[in-house]
């Protein structure tokens, strides 16, 4: 932290760190300055010229994203000269903008719309024909590029240059022909490509997955944590539930990164598009499938099942929250004294890792189990025991064993288990083999905490109502535990 100095902001004396950019210092003091090109993680090229402020002693308005705070600086953001300058800059940004808001997915969260209403409001003077450039260009598997809508703030090119260092996007040509383009022979297919959609202040880069599914003003937002790996990135879950005919009937419309110290401003594409199977084959009823299919109440199920759990072997996964793990420990370790727990990340939950965000373990909360002193046995041992017929009762929690052992082998191993309990949000490939099938909530339908690989507590909120009578895992464990005692 640098030296604190006093400067004046709109006539008010404010303290800020010396050398901090005025645009940031003003935001800390509660004054939002309109801007496009400046991004705290991508630097301040100062090319959009929208963040101009008036500084006492300076002959012309100055861009606040290039202006460091120093002692005695006198900044004004609210004068007529500033407003005129901003409106003029915005008018130039919009000269060649196609104004196709009705078909643009960005409208509703567009910087041009927002700042036109905030600092623009000028009557249009444009009489000339607009410059035409490329439209609907598939920049990559996740990103659609519209060059006409671009205001050339260079945020996206700085992202691929500075953050991913993959350099797929660049600014080509000059003057009115200047445009963002995918570099020749490349596609925007790096593991973080979705972030350019978030940082694009206009509709030039839009999400192909989200394209035309639902208008952004119909979405609800909830703070959550990405369950895609052990990094535990902060995300915002955007849901569409008010009008079920939108978004092809799915409830989660998109995931957006939410700033946190763990992930900064970004998230990876694996996490961003990892919600696709959230609502497929969801369980919503408490069922006893064998010997005959009966729907049970939670209490009846707990009373029936609790007495039969002696000698159980438990398969779980790092999808459980800290709360789930605590109840899990209380039931299986403290009450049932189970020795055989299996929850380690097997090949089904191991994937790509890099230096930026992605971690090897593709589940969020193995650390939470570790913190409680739980130890995972080897899945190979479990397979051997199953083969030898040594397993009387197997309790599978939020894990698809078909992905661990392969479907044919897992099916063969599980069919011979005398009592198989399956608990989880989705049915999976082997859900029909279970004797008891218990619906659990998905992470978007419950509150809780993950512990990420660094040991940071990552709390997440509920974004949606559970399906059917699904309950959080910890509630199910607690029910069973109460039925035991």
């Amino acid at each position, binding site marked *: 932290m640098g030296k604190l100095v006093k400067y004046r902001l709109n006539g008010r004396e404010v303290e800020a760190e010396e050398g901090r950019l005025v645009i940031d210092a003003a935001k800390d003091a509660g004054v939002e300055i309109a801007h496009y090109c400046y991004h705290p993680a991508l630097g301040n090229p100062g090319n959009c010229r929208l963040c101009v402020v008036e500084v006492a002693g300076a002959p012309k308005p100055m861009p606040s994203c290039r202006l460091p705070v120093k002692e005695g600086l006198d900044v004004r953001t609210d004068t007529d000269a500033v407003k005129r300058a901003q409106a003029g800059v915005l008018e130039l940004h919009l000269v060649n903008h196609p104004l*196709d808001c*009705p*078909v643009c997915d960005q409208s509703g969260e567009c910087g041009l719309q927002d700042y036109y209403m905030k600092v623009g409001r000028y009557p249009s003077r444009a009489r000339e024909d607009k410059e035409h450039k490329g*439209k*609907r260009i598939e920049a990559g598997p996740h990103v659609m590029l519209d060059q006409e809508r671009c205001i050339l703030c260079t945020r996206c090119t700085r992202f691929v240059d500075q953050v991913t260092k993959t350099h797929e996007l660049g600014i080509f040509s000059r003057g009115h022909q200047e445009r963002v383009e995918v570099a020749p022979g490349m596609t925007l297919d790096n593991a973080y490509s979705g972030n350019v959609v978030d940082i694009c202040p206009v509709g030039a880069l839009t999400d192909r997955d989200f394209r*035309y*599914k639902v208008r952004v003003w119909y979405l609800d937002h909830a703070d959550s944590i990405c369950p895609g790996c052990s990094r535990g990135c902060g995300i915002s879950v955007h849901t569409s539930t008010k*009008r079920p*005919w939108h978004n092809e009937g799915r409830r989660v419309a998109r995931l957006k990164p939410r700033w946190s110290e763990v992930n900064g401003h970004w998230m990876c594409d694996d996490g961003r598009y990892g919600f696709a199977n959230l609502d497929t084959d969801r369980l919503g009823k408490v069922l006893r499938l064998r010997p005959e299919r009966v729907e049970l109440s939670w209490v009846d199920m707990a009373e029936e099942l609790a007495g039969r759990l002696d000698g159980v072997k438990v398969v779980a996964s790092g999808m459980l929250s800290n709360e789930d793990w605590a109840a899990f420990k209380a039931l299986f370790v403290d009450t049932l004294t189970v020795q055989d727990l299996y929850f380690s990340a097997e090949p089904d939950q191991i994937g790509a890792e890099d230096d930026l965000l992605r971690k090897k373990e593709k589940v969020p909360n193995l650390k939470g189990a570790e913190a409680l002193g739980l130890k995972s046995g080897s899945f190979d041992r479990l397979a051997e025991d199953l083969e030898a017929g040594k397993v009387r009762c197997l309790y599978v929690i939020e894990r698809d064993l078909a992905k661990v052992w392969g479907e044919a082998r897992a099916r063969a191993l599980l069919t011979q288990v005398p009592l198989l309990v399956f608990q989880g949000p989705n049915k999976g490939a082997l859900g029909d083999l279970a004797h008891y099938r218990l619906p659990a909530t998905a992470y978007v339908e419950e509150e809780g905490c993950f512990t990420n690989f660094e040991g940071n507590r990552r709390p997440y909120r509920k974004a949606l109502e559970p399906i059917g009578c699904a309950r959080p895992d910890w509630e199910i464990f607690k029910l069973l535990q109460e039925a035991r005692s």
Partner: protein
Amino acid sequence: MTVRVVERPARTLAVQIYFIEAWKGLGVTFRHFFVNMFRHAARALGLKGWAPGAVTIQYPEEPAVLGARARTRHRLLKRDDGAPRCTACLLCETICPARCIRITAENAPDVLVEKRAKSFDIDLGMCVFCGYCVEACPVDAIHMDSNEVEIASYSRADMIWTMPQLLGDEPKRPSSFP
């Protein structure tokens, strides 16, 4: 339609003191009263055909007379090439206070059109005929000038008009009594 500009009447003192205008209004009421009474009396005296009975319209035998700007059943308009004008911006669905419009969108084959409606349903059973959808539309794709008011049906499901029906490509068959 030519637009006639009408001067707004000046709020003179005669208007503002209320009584004169109130009596003028009552004059209209009494004129209708006496004209109707005279015609009814004439009919009662056997003078049929000499004058119409009253100002009442014999609907449905006689067609309903609608004002030039009456808001009637919606219709969707087409471009010159025959494609629907609607770009599925969802502004009408958003503004609709009765939530009777349901639109789903898709990519349009023409890159300059970009977006078009995959389905566009209006539930006329819920519509309140406020006309906001027409005003909200940025591409002049929806009008309420079909001059059709006879849209009743025997079931709620039948009150839903789909995109081909609203475009006039497919007739809306009146449902028979169940």
